[in-house]
């Protein structure tokens, strides 16, 4: 077995351990270096992943497979991790637990990457838990902040429940087919179709993944957690962890359980419609920007879920491409919020809700770069042209129409029209409402992370060809045969 296949994961693990060790021996003031090391590790991993694009291999007795799908999602996770570590440099400034922050982040990313390449349900579950456990701890990183702790506890309890449901579902699959291998289950699908165990497994798995992807009605934890968690961690959750749920669901439903398509397709159709509508409508009334972004994140997950309903290579490719775009847009938006929160807290230490939309008043004058990037991110989320968001909606929605689900596309398009209202509200606060406050200097690492995300959003919008190509390659892994 070629160890180079796992170079990206290995570089993350090694960096994570190194950060943890080094952190033990250096004083708090010089812990800033840990952030740079972590960033470097992510860049190396990203380099290895990109340079091995197109590799096709399996490892560990066929339990792990490296293919276009896993590599595409690895890039998504690594990009999010990159934004996370860069902005983490500022967030953890002066914190004595810096090493834990970065190590947990890197381990979570490693877990997500293994989910993307899992070819066996046990590997998938363990990787899933690795990522989840690391993020539970990250959400509660602000030990003195009751909101952060509440968020972590809620997330942990719900996460444990969803993990249990998922495991139970997997055990049914194993019981019926005698294997945990994903292609193995697909090969024995006739057993599942003929026995009620298949249906039970589908229900349990949809519930399990529904929690992770935050589909309504399994979404209750998401707004509280995204709001209470440090913004940088919310970025990791919304942009990274959610995509892990999606890639896992793609593997289990579209590959392993494709024979039961009739049973789960309609469930996903209902979940998609309910999730996007609920997310958008509730987002209209939010005054906390992080909470608004959390609900918008529900809506976006609803759009991506459409790929499960349409199930054509184009739709799946569109959904996968959407995952990458959403990574940039949502992580960017949360980091921009983090910059604002940082600014508010540095002015007034006791501010109870630093992400309240009132704090965005006059941001265009106070923090011009942040405001400009935030404008780009929310317009991208709304699907305004020449941004990544428009390109992804274009592919996904148009593929929905192509497959004949015109009603679904119409609902989705109406939803994106509604969403424009609350996204435009943020822009209105930033540029049109006056403020007396002075211009402040923008925290440098946040700015870098936002600019990287902004460039990503624009590149995907202007020149999507190579990314669309790889997304379509990834979709071919799910549905061999292609177009």
């Amino acid at each position, binding site marked *: 077995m070629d160890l180079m296949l796992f170079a990206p994961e290995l570089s993350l693990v090694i960096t994570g351990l190194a950060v943890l060790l080094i952190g033990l021996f250096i004083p708090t003031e010089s812990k800033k270096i840990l952030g740079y090391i972590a960033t470097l590790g992510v860049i190396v991993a990203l380099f290895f992943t990109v340079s091995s694009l197109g590799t096709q291999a399996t490892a560990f007795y066929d339990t792990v497979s490296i293919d276009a799908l896993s590599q595409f999602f690895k890039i998504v996770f690594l990009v999010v991790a990159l934004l996370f570590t860069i902005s983490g440099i500022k967030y953890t400034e002066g914190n004595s637990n810096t090493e834990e922050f970065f190590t947990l982040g890197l381990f979570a990313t490693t877990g997500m990457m293994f989910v993307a390449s899992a070819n066996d349900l046990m590997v998938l579950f363990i990787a899933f838990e690795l990522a989840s456990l690391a993020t539970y701890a990250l959400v509660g990183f602000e030990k003195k902040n009751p909101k952060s702790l509440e968020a972590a506890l809620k997330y942990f309890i719900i996460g444990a429940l969803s993990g249990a449901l998922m495991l139970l579902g997997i055990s049914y699959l194993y019981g019926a087919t005698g294997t945990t291998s994903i292609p193995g289950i697909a090969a024995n699908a006739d057993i599942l179709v003929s026995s009620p165990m298949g249906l039970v497994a589908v229900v349990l798995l949809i519930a399990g993944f529904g929690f992770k992807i935050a589909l309504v009605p399994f979404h209750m934890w998401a707004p509280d957690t995204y709001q209470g968690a440090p913004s940088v961690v919310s970025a990791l959750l919304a942009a990274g962890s959610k995509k892990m749920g999606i890639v896992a669901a793609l593997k289990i439903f579209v590959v392993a359980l494709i024979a039961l398509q009739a049973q789960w397709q309609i469930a996903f159709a209902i979940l998609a419609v309910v999730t996007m509508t609920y997310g958008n409508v509730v987002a209209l009334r939010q005054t906390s920007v992080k909470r608004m972004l959390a609900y918008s994140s529900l809506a976006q997950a609803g759009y991506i879920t459409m790929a499960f309903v349409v199930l054509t290579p184009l739709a799946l490719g569109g959904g996968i491409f959407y995952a990458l775009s959403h990574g940039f847009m949502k992580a960017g938006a949360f980091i921009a919020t983090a910059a604002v929160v940082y600014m508010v807290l540095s002015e007034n230490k006791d501010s109870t809700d630093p992400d309240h939309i009132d704090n965005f008043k006059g941001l265009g004058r106070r923090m011009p770069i942040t405001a400009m990037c935030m404008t780009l991110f929310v317009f991208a989320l709304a699907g*305004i*042209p*020449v941004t990544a968001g*428009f390109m992804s909606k*274009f*592919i996904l*929605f*148009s593929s929905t*129409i*192509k497959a004949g689900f015109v009603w679904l*596309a*119409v609902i989705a*398009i*109406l939803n*994106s*029209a509604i969403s*424009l*209202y609350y996204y*435009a509200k943020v822009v*209105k606060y930033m*540029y*049109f409402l006056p403020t007396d406050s002075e211009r402040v200097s923008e925290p440098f690492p946040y700015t870098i992370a936002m600019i990287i995300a902004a460039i990503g959003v624009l590149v995907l919008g202007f020149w*999507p*060809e190579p990314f*669309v*190509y790889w997304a*379509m390659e990834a979709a071919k892994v799910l549905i061999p045969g292609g177009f």
Partner: protein
Amino acid sequence: MLPILSLIVLIPLIFAALTLLTKTKEQARSLALVATVAVLLLTVYMYFNFDSSIASNQFEELAQWVPSLGITYHLGVDGVSMPLILLNAIVLPLLILFTWNDERKSPNKFYACILATEGAVIGVFTALDFFLFYVFWELTLIPLFFMVSIWGGPNKHHAAIKFFIYTHVASLVMLLGIFGLYFASWDMTGVPSLDIPTLIAQFQYIESGIAKDMIFLALLFGFIVKIPSFPFHSWLPDAYTEAPTAGSVLFVMLKIGGYGLFKIMLPMLPFTASPNLMITILAVLGSVSIIYGAFLALSQKDLKRMVAYSSVSHMGYVTLGAAGLVSLSVSGAMFQQFSHGLIMSIMFMSCGVINNATGTRIINDLGGLAQKMPKLATIMLFTFMASLGLPGLTGFVAEVSVLAGSFVNLPVYVIIALLAIVITAAYHLWAFQRTMFGVYNEKLGTVFDINRYQTLSMGIIAILILYFGFNPSPVFDMMLTNSEHIISLMAVVGV
């Protein structure tokens, strides 16, 4: 050869970005003037090299963009778009001159918005790929949204949001129509393509009649909201009225709805499953807009709002002429767009001047302004005459062509529209009499006439109205060529 179309789209967009970086009003307005004059020169050059005897696209530029989805970078002009590009290229430098001495907050953003709108609108007129078309279509929204919500009147936020959401929803419906066309053609040919001429040509081969009608209506909805036509006009009075003067003029330059009607809808119309129904829809919308807009204009108290409603009425001629489906009515409708752009620019500029000078636009509070503002009164009288259709000016040429042409196929609707002519004359003359003549209202204090920049810019447009009124052929010929081409498509099917 010089990529002239790319240049006239990109110069305003690039200069918009540069203008944002400037610090003072002087720098911003100079940059804006340089950019718009450059566009004007290139457009004039293009105009003189344009062959108005052929209906096909000229100055084409084609490059692959996203091959796997059939998206290309495809630009071109024909007789429908050339006059509209010319209109934008002429009016925009004059608009910059008009605002030359104005004092306002953040002039850099202001001029950047003007330039971005120009680039996006010309982009819509030149795009021959639906993706590019939609991108520019949506791009027009953003600077105009900012225009209204930063420099607008007291009710600006409401007007801006209403305009944005109203037209954005319409664009999304249009996008659905584009998707339908795209996939129907993809299924038939096996090759994805978003090329506008290709897709329009493919439209007739779609088998399902319902699908054809749905696609047609979805696209039509996007266009008639932008025109705007009754009953989807309600965003217009708010947006036009609340916008600053320059914003109102930009709205007037936004002829993309009517453009879509001629460029995309009419060539597809004969191949829909029920062409007669579609013609009736257009004719009803057009004639009702004409008369309903005129009545609403008559009842307005605010001068600018009156002008905005008169715009609904005038744009009704565009829809009616398109439905008339003879080459005279169709080219008359195209000419109405051109003429309306020139006339309305001065109308809104006049409203802006009056508002600045007196602090009010309420018609009853004004009066006798002609004594204090003779230059404005002269130009305004001229424009009001052009707007109500005095022979020898552009409005007359356009309206007569539309009404005479449409009478062949749609006599009833034309008679309905004719009734509006009386009302049109009434509200114009009545409003002019109450604002300009009579006893000067002393409460208005001391007012000053238009400055020389304003005189220059309004004067040049007025001269153009006169010139094209006597000699419309420089733009009318190419419109006629294209409308004959459209009508020849009708003949094939025998509508």
